[in-house]
């Protein structure tokens, strides 16, 4: 057969070559070479990776949208940072977008150390330490309890576990406001009202539904055979939890920590209801600084105070964000 010129000939040729078996591999190779050397079939069809254009309609749309959204979110932050670095005379000029002519850190110092909230004039520092003393135990306590809850619900299906879980989830949908006053009474009766421990208890309880759901779903996604193998190996409830489940669950613990730190740190409602002025968390103090009505509004101090308050969740997010990705990658290995 001559060198094929049409598709039909090519197909015939292929069939002829393939049917008698591997013996004719050489013939196929020769044919391929002849195609390469520029016969009709090979002429100038596309070859190799499909070219992609950097300025396609699609790319312009995607990156344009991303840019607009990014600016929308970053602009207020920019104004806050810039304003917090200006002195009051410069702010009165009214150009909120212009960078500071003379950078001053005095508003930051004042916000942290000497701004007045009610009777106290020691700035946000008191609120910061209060918030730390609220957030750290609340995060640890709530995650410790919720992870054991989730583990028990996912792996040890006890009688009524489904009912228990349903009740817990329904709890997540009840508005907080409904429960404010009953909790005030409960805390008063057990002698924790107004103390930091009381607020820790409240935060731990309110974190329970969503965290339990989170952990239960994660543990349920781990291979069940791992749990069975550990049981055959003789490990009990706690042994399996601590030595098998927890080491495999770093990603979900990181997620829970992020969720709880940001949630508890940013909480205002519980803080203002369940604490006294000397135990106010940072958010409540910030509100009192910003909304104080005596004298002039010190915008630069307000901005600095707000940034200081928002700094903790921001830092946590940046640091653990990286850990989070690493955790997922480590967990992606098939057991």
């Amino acid at each position, binding site marked *: 057969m001559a060198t094929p010129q049409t598709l039909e000939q090519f197909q015939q040729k292929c069939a002829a070559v393939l049917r008698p078996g591997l013996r004719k591999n050489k013939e196929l190779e020769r044919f391929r070479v002849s195609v390469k050397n520029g016969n009709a079939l090979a002429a100038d069809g596309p070859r190799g990776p499909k070219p992609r254009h950097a300025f396609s309609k699609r790319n312009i749309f995607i990156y344009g949208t991303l840019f607009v959204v990014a600016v929308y979110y970053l602009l207020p932050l920019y104004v806050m940072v810039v304003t917090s670095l200006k002195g009051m005379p410069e702010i009165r000029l009214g150009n909120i977008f212009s960078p500071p002519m003379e950078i001053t850190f005095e508003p930051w110092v004042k916000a942290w150390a000497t701004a007045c909230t009610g009777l106290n004039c020691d700035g946000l520092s008191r609120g910061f330490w209060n918030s730390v003393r609220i957030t750290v135990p609340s995060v640890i306590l709530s995650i410790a309890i919720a992870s054991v809850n989730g583990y028990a619900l996912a792996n040890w299906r006890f009688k009524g576990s489904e009912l228990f879980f349903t009740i817990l989830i329904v709890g997540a949908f009840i508005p907080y406001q409904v429960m404010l006053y009953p909790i005030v009474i409960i805390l008063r009766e057990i002698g924790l009202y107004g103390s930091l421990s009381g607020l820790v208890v409240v935060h731990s309880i309110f974190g329970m539904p969503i965290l339990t759901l989170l952990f239960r779903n994660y543990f349920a996604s781990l*291979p069940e*055979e791992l749990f069975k193998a*550990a*049981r055959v*190996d003789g490990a009990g409830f706690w042994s399996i939890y601590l030595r098998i489940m927890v080491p495999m669950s770093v990603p979900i613990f990181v997620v829970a920590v992020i969720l709880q730190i940001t949630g508890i740190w940013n909480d205002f409602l519980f803080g203002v209801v369940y604490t006294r002025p000397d135990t106010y968390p940072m958010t409540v103090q910030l509100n009192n600084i910003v909304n104080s009505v005596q004298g002039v509004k010190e915008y630069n101090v307000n901005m600095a105070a707000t940034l200081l308050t928002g700094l903790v969740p921001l830092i946590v997010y940046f640091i653990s964000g990286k850990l989070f990705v690493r955790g997922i990658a480590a967990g992606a*290995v098939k057991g």
Partner: protein
Amino acid sequence: MSATANPSVSIQDLTLNFGIVPVLQSLDLDIAEGEFIVLLGPSGCGKSTLLNCIAGLLDISDGRIFIKGKNVTWEEPKDRGIGMVFQSYALYPQMSVEKNLSFGLKVAGTPKAEIDKRIARAAEILQIEQLLQRKPAALSGGQRQRVAIGRALVRDVDVFLFDEPLSNLDAKLRSELRVEIKRLHQRLANTMIYVTHDQIEAMTLADRIAVMRGGVIQQLDEPQAIYNRPVNRFVAGFIGSPGMNFIEGGLEESGGDWRFGSGDLKVPLSTYVFDQQPVAGPAVFGMRPEHIGLNSGSGWPFSAKVTVDVVEPMGSDTLVWVRLGAQSLSVRVPSERAPKTGSQVEIGFDPMRASLFGEDGNRL
């Protein structure tokens, strides 16, 4: 090998319901000391469930389980003297191979020297000595499964339970590890219960096979007996690849001789050994492809001229599909004797090797 008076594992009247769905129904099974039993069946037949019940990972609804003469029905898995190997290996991902092997022993509080001794022995038997410091993620599938077997081995158990241990491996590794498991059984002489849906594994490994369907053991017998004398049509169709040929028809008596008829086709059954007294009525005639001869001269109690429909070469041998009356039959022949498509051939077989099933599907 039949069950002895003193079985290694004895399951009596085992029933398991998931809610209102019965999964296992009053199942009885006696397994002799050192016996290799394979539970074989399609997915959803309850074979893995049965294994989990023996392991103590599932609470049973009724019945009793004895291991080594001890009633373990209410015992925890660790107290039953069993080791289990799972399909997905189930190695603890954050622990090294050595830690994986020693975990159960550490939990049980075994002295360090004893742990080291047992790990060394298991590693030697399974040839995983050079892998002990690695994490499971750094192992290939075959190595992982070996470590998983090692985890059962170090615990020095009476009974090994395998839950489809080779199903996640590729075909070549599977056949290699199959041989190794068989070797392991010969060396350890432990009782082993092995769940699979792969009939080749079942045939090659088992001392006895229990073919299961719908939570009921259909047939419990040696591999050859199951292959040659399946008790019902389900077992006949499930075992054997390529599958058994089935011809629907009826049983007839003519002058004291029984024969099977389907349309124009009449097969004399003078050589067939009936399990029960035959009665005239609908029946199914089953014949394995390798028991049908092709162009192999006369002397068959039944022979016929047929046309070749399709030829399927499979390497070692070739499957030839022919039309016999209205029926399509497969015949297994050595590849060098395979006929061409469309050619006329003569087939013949001896009904002695056939399996006849009655209307209810049971062997006649």
